[in-house]
């Protein structure tokens, strides 16, 4: 039987019996739900140093992705602290937006076609350009990815990395006995690498740098120079909520645009007095851009005032001053004006 007919039949049967309240098909946009609730529920991670990580020193959840959660709260509710962070795993992150548990997820997630279609994620602009890399123990004498042919490669369950490696092993005609082991989360993965069960830990390079940086003896580990896939990382919301998706898309762009304009969390008061019509419109001094998005007219001020621009978020969490030291200069994550890919469409 056609599933749709079956579903409609079931639904009408239930309605007749008066057992079910009418399905809330025409529901509010998540934007209204969040404003009514007065709190944003944002899915993130607690096992990726630099991106979403429970810092044992401060006892706080910190990182690049976590800062994006706060930025969205600042934009939607005018207060960066009005956010509840839901810690997810690689496997349940998509379900969390599908069933409405989280309003938005920033979880180190690669944009792929399947995820944008069958998985039902509506992606926001790319927040970090990454690639699959490999972390090995220095003692193992592995110099390049080719040395791993026939070895045991470990990654996390439900990541794109898993599929990337299957293709790589097949495409490069490696020994089919090469093992790809998958663990539930990165700390088990790192423990397995450390114990020698895995010859290589593989995931996005940024995460590898984080684990190396956090290791008791970082110098025992090497991140190989090879990159075997492109992994553009972005936050996502559920599909079918255009208003919410559009609003958050432009919140993400605003972070990049603020950096391009040279607006930082420190110089915002002076910038408000700027005569530049582009900046005036961007900051909500002139015009109605914020209102049209369903946000406060001054949402950019709130976001940048609380969290800083893209560059500030980057430097605070993963930049050269941090233990992870992921260089930004000239990388894909630099502003387009410096040869990178960070680019915001104009706010007009």
């Amino acid at each position: 039987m056609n599933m749709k007919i079956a579903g409609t039949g079931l639904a009408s049967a239930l309605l007749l019996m008066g057992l079910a309240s009418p399905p809330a098909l025409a529901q509010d946009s998540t934007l209204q739900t969040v404003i009514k609730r007065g709190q944003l529920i944002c899915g993130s991670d607690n096992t990726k140093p630099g991106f979403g990580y429970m810092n044992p020193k401060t006892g706080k959840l910190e990182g690049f992705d976590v800062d994006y959660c706060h930025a969205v709260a600042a934009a939607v509710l005018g207060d960066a602290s009005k956010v509840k962070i839901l810690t997810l795993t690689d496997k349940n992150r998509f379900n969390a937006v599908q069933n409405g548990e989280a309003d938005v997820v920033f979880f180190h997630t690669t944009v792929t076609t399947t995820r944008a279609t069958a998985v039902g994620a509506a992606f926001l602009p790319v927040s970090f350009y990454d690639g699959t890399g490999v972390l090995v123990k220095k003692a193992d004498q592995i110099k390049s990815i080719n040395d791993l042919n026939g070895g045991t490669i470990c990654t996390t369950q439900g990541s794109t990395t898993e599929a990337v490696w299957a293709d790589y092993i097949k495409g490069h005609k490696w020994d089919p006995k090469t093992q790809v082991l998958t663990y539930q989360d990165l700390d088990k993965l790192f423990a397995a690498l450390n114990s020698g069960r895995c010859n290589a830990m593989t995931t996005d390079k940024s995460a590898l740098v984080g684990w190396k940086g956090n290791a008791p003896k970082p110098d025992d580990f090497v991140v190989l120079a090879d990159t075997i896939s492109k992994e553009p990382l972005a936050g996502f919301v559920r599909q079918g909520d255009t208003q919410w998706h559009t609003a958050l898309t432009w919140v993400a762009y605003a972070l990049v645009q603020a950096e391009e304009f040279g607006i930082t969390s420190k110089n915002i008061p002076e910038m408000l007095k700027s005569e530049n019509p582009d900046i005036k419109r961007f900051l909500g001094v002139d015009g109605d851009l914020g209102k049209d998005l369903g946000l406060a007219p001054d949402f950019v001020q709130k976001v940048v005032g609380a969290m800083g621009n893209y560059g500030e978020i980057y430097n605070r969490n993963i930049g050269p001053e941090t233990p992870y030291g992921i260089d930004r200069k000239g990388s894909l994550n630099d502003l387009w004006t410096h040869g990178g890919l960070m680019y915001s469409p104009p706010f007009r």
Partner: protein
Amino acid sequence: MKAGGSQERYTLGDHVLQIGVVLGAIAIVLGLAASVYIGLASHHIPIDFSFLSQVSGLHLSEGLTLDLSRPWDLVPFSSSDTNLQALILGLYNTLKVALLGIVFSTLLGLLVGIGRVSPNWLLNRVCLVFVDLVRNTPLLIQLFFWYFAVVLQLPALRSAAQFYGVIASRQGIYTPSLLGVPAWPDFWWAALASLVLAAVILRLTRRPGARAFRWPGIAVIAIAWGVALAALGHPLRIDLPVASRFRASGGLAFTPEFSAILLALVVYTAAFIAEIVRGSIEAVSTRQWMAAYALGLKRHQAMTHIILPQAFRILVPPLVNQYLNLAKNTSLAIAIGFPDLFNVYGTVANQTGRSMEGILIVMVAYLALNWLISLVMNLYNRRLMAQGAR
């Protein structure tokens, strides 16, 4: 409705009530199904099983699957196989752990349980400590213990010693195996067939009249093997594992993940089975012991001939519960990366986005597995009871 000899009669009202309860239950199930369906539909996720025939693009670390064009043969998995084959591989791994787990936990549980009623103080206490320790800590934590603190602490492959052909390393445990040379692919089928044949002969020759055919029958099988082996030019040899850089080749290989999950399940379940065994032995009347001793039997003779056969009749029903728990607990394997059914389901669901369909399949598979275990054990139990009634 059997009223069991009482004079109870059901009134019309009772029938209406019962029909109402049944209809209500059906309505609740339909209601849940509909709300799931509507919920998914409102998120633009219709239920669709076509992902099963799509290419999985996965590289799974161990296990065999069915070649769908040759469904009698188990083959290694390749990334161009379908999602269905990936799930079959998961089921294969689950079955492997569950079956071996049931066999070994029963043996260990029996030994420990008998040890618990032993008059030997030391043995008794050792078994008590084992049971208490194992029963009172969570299985997941034991699993991590076996994996990270035991199996992964074995020496690395390149420094692991070979002991009578066995290599125990953190890359895996390797043992010698019997191998057909140059290629006798059907060796295991032939071995299985002769075992089945031998069992059939033993069964058919139970009657005193047929007893004379028993050993000649078995001898015929043995001679057939001898002739076949000679005719094929001694095609069997012991295959020793040889360590290379990343793994050993040859022999039988047990991965660390498989070894750890099996160890954890066997030890954990054995502790519970031991308590069932102890309870069943203690439930047999002490007069049975006395009667056995009066006949001049020694303690171990009394145990094997008098007490255990009676204890078995008490033991089987609660034992089934432990088997069912063991079968379900295999799903914890996900925590250490062993690709059991639940683990593979997670991976497939993540690559295709089909979690709802996948979880339905997984639930049906576990249900079928547990029904099968119950069925086999119930048949066995019925036979046991029938024997006792004779």
